[in-house]
């Protein structure tokens, strides 16, 4: 694994994430967030008649639409410069982005050989509090798929074309919740097309 995101830099990011979370963020009880997300998923189950593929897809799209906009706030609040490499990106996602938005710091793990993919291990996922998946959903529903969409959308806005998907989820009986981010390519540095 490359160590270009040096220890010092990681520490700086960690301090930054904590500082923004502590001082620059209006907070609400995460229960409310959990409930609201749960209500949305439950409605989708009803609308799509438990076609979990469609639900995954809808949650992903919902996340994408959040991601492309939430990145603005993120950049404004943290004033972070463009990441120089994917290692740094991973640290920023875990120690700053997740921290600032959800007060979580997922563990970074399983770097690919070519250093273009890594996993986030999410523990204490606020979305999945209270949730018990019914048996028919255990195999096909990615309950927290909104995260994938958010990351996809946000990364795209900073010129990183990535594939983001879940590998495993405690809700499905797996022993950890793992989300994989794979970099496809760095997009050309052009003004992204934002339709108004």
């Amino acid at each position, binding site marked *: 694994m490359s160590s270009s995101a040096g220890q010092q830099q990681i520490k700086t990011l960690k301090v930054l994430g904590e500082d923004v979370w502590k001082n620059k963020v209006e907070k609400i009880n995460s229960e409310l967030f959990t409930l*609201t997300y749960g209500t949305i998923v439950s409605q989708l189950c009803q609308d799509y008649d438990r076609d979990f593929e469609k639900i995954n897809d*809808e949650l992903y799209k*919902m996340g994408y639409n959040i991601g492309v906009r939430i990145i603005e706030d993120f950049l404004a609040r943290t004033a972070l410069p463009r990441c120089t490499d994917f290692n740094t990106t991973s640290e920023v996602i875990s120690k700053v982005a997740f921290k600032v938005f959800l007060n979580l710091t997922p563990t970074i793990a399983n770097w690919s050989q070519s250093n273009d993919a890594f996993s986030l291990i999410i523990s204490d996922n606020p979305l999945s509090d209270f949730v018990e998946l019914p048996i028919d959903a255990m195999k096909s529903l990615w309950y927290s798929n909104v995260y994938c969409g958010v990351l996809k959308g946000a990364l795209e806005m900073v010129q990183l074309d990535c594939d983001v998907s879940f590998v495993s989820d405690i809700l499905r009986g797996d022993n950890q919740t793992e989300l994989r981010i794979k970099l496809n390519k760095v997009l050309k540095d052009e003004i992204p097309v934002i339709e108004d």
Partner: protein
Amino acid sequence: MQQQQQPSNITRRHDPSHPHHHHQLTEEQQQFQLFQESLPKINRLVYQMLLNEIIPTSISVQNRLDESDDNSDAEQLKKLSISEKPVVPSHKLVSQMHEIKNEGRYNNILERIRTIGFKLGCKIADLLVFANNPNLNFRDMDLLAIMKFVCRDVWKLVFGKQIDNLKTNHRGTFYLIDYSYQPIKNFALNDDTNKLSAEELEKKELKSVEPFLELPVGIIKGVLEALGYNAKETICLATYIDLPNEDASHYGFSKGISFHVQVTNTTRQQQP
């Protein structure tokens, strides 16, 4: 209709049933506050975005359901290509609303949003009741007290601000007025075509924003249901109202919202 204006500022809990003085909290209240502060938290912005995304998602679901209805033969084909389709941006979906000619479709979308609000309202009420807030005594609440609870506690929780004004005729009719309804606060439509008159543009804007008003409509009905007022006997409608003169100038959405709530059976918890 005889209306009696409530003290216009209900944001202060000065009625005796709600002892709430910041300078002298009881031990119970202090404990409760500490407990609330100790609960896990997230960033409110994330919550706001999630809440707002309910509307375009509901539209997107309708599009997809209609798609499979229209040509179930082509459904398989569509299924294959669906993941390749670019995501339709939320604001595009929302601005579709005013173009929807099919009333059934339009109403389905609004109904879906209301249902989400309703479920959410029920859960929030259950949660707030269970939280044992020493400032709230649900057992002793009458309908007016419950509406005040909606205006202060529920609104504050979900939208980060309280309702600005509550009016009632004391016979089951209430007007909850929010002059800066948070989810749409920063909405302003651009005229892509540059062909619309100011009037047309406003009409389009108001129409696009309408679905955002259905979520709180559902929430209000859900809270009432959870506290013993059957949703079938509750009417709730949202309408635009003009901002008071002194507020009209500041930047933001051009209208206030009035939620008209009518509880036809004001006896709590009718037995079947």
